[in-house]
């Protein structure tokens, strides 16, 4: 039997006041009337805890849009789980945060789109910057630890120093700087988002210097721009190894982006228990361990580190989810990625960003 998971990513809703063009939610967003009810989520949390989960990440979309959020926080807390609120900050008033903290939120993860009001609000598609700054202040006042999260791409990479300063000013203990991963929305907007080599060459040392300067005060986690690298980023701790995701409609996903793998048969909490899905479903077992791998991964020592890279990326760029991540320099499909870089890093005509919207 597979080891028990440690974390549940609960995507309570896909509704969101922001419209970031790299959103990690799928292109086909779950509508409100298809969302799980409060009772369903309580059952999901119970099952996640008995399966072994000790962390519940309340995410979305924007989880603050669920009126039952206080009840769900309290329930997750009553099970002894660590409760992480993942939010845009829009709607996180002082009172709201105080009440959520008293019910058991342990940590807040706040997104920041760019260093300045103008840049942030252009990417977010709404005026959100000032509200984020206020939300961060409320989190600090409440004494909760704060992580700031910024997705990096061509439109904001040049402001990386400013983003780090902003996170410091907000009082973050952690800053996650994650280069865009191209699935769903980000894939659609790739020609607007893909950074240039020059941008990365400037940004990388700025991040490294800040990591050094802020050691012990603010931890900076940097996720590489994998298209530009010789090796892929690791796929979590391996597929179906540590975490599971439940989408707003109850679909249970081995990885938050897994719906892009259209060949994967997805189970739902309305039909099966998390226990059965984690241990016995074809989707969770599809890429567990190393047996499913083909060469070059199968005989590569790096497989212990990167697990062959991203299954979603392999599927999207080659049509085969079980193949080597094509960003890998050892992949026979690396030329696909090089061609994309060549044509989309500096496109002759930059298309407009497709803003995230429900259909």
């Amino acid at each position, binding site marked *: 039997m597979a080891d*028990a998971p*440690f974390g549940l990513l609960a995507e309570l809703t896909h509704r969101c006041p922001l419209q970031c063009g790299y959103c990690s939610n799928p292109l086909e967003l779950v509508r409100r009337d298809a969302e799980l009810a409060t009772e369903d989520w309580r059952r999901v949390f119970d099952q996640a805890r008995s399966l072994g989960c*000790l*962390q519940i990440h309340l995410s979305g979309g924007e989880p603050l849009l669920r009126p039952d959020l206080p009840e769900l926080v309290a329930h997750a807390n009553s099970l*002894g*789980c*660590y409760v992480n609120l993942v939010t845009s900050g829009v709607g996180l008033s002082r009172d709201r945060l105080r009440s959520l903290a008293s019910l058991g939120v*342990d940590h807040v993860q706040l997104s920041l789109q760019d260093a300045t009001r103008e840049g942030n609000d252009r990417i977010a598609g709404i005026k959100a910057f000032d509200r984020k700054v206020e939300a961060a202040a409320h989190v600090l006042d409440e004494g909760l*630890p704060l992580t700031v999260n910024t997705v990096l791409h061509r439109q904001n990479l040049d402001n990386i120093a400013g983003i780090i300063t902003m996170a410091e000013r907000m009082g973050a203990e952690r800053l996650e700087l994650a280069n865009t991963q191209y699935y769903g929305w980000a894939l659609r907007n790739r020609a607007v988002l893909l950074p240039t080599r020059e941008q990365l060459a400037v940004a990388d040392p700025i991040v490294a210097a800040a990591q050094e300067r802020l050691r012990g005060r603010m931890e900076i986690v940097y996720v590489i721009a994998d298209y530009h690298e010789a090796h892929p980023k690791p796929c979590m701790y391996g597929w179906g190894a540590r975490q599971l995701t439940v989408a707003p409609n109850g679909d249970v996903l081995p990885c938050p982006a897994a719906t892009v793998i259209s060949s994967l048969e997805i189970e739902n909490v309305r039909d099966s228990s998390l226990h059965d899905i984690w241990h016995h479903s074809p989707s969770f077992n599809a890429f567990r361990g190393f047996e499913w791998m083909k060469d070059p991964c199968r005989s590569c020592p790096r497989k212990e580190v990167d697990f062959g890279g991203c299954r979603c990326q392999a599927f999207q760029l080659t049509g085969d989810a079980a193949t080597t991540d094509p960003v890998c320099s050892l992949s026979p499909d690396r030329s696909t990625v090089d061609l994309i870089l060549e044509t989309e890093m500096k496109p002759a005509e930059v298309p407009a960003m497709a803003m995230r919207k429900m259909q």
Partner: protein
Amino acid sequence: MTIALDAVPRIRRGVKCTYDQIREAHVVLFPEGVLVLNETAASVVALCDGVRSIGDIAVALADEYAGVEPGDVTSLVARMVERRVVDVDG
């Protein structure tokens, strides 16, 4: 990193120590993950109260476990500091 014997470790803000009935082990929960502790580690973590020094913790544990050396406590605390579970003053 080196930590002195008179350094005083404390659990970081936002870190929760609890017992997991499923794994039948003490665990530490923090924003970026979960640590499953063995018995000695759990006893050390329980004594990281912001009052006791590393030396005090070693003395307290010597009663409970034969053969616990101050150096063991120091290296365990150093690992916890690295994982951002524990802070040390002094």
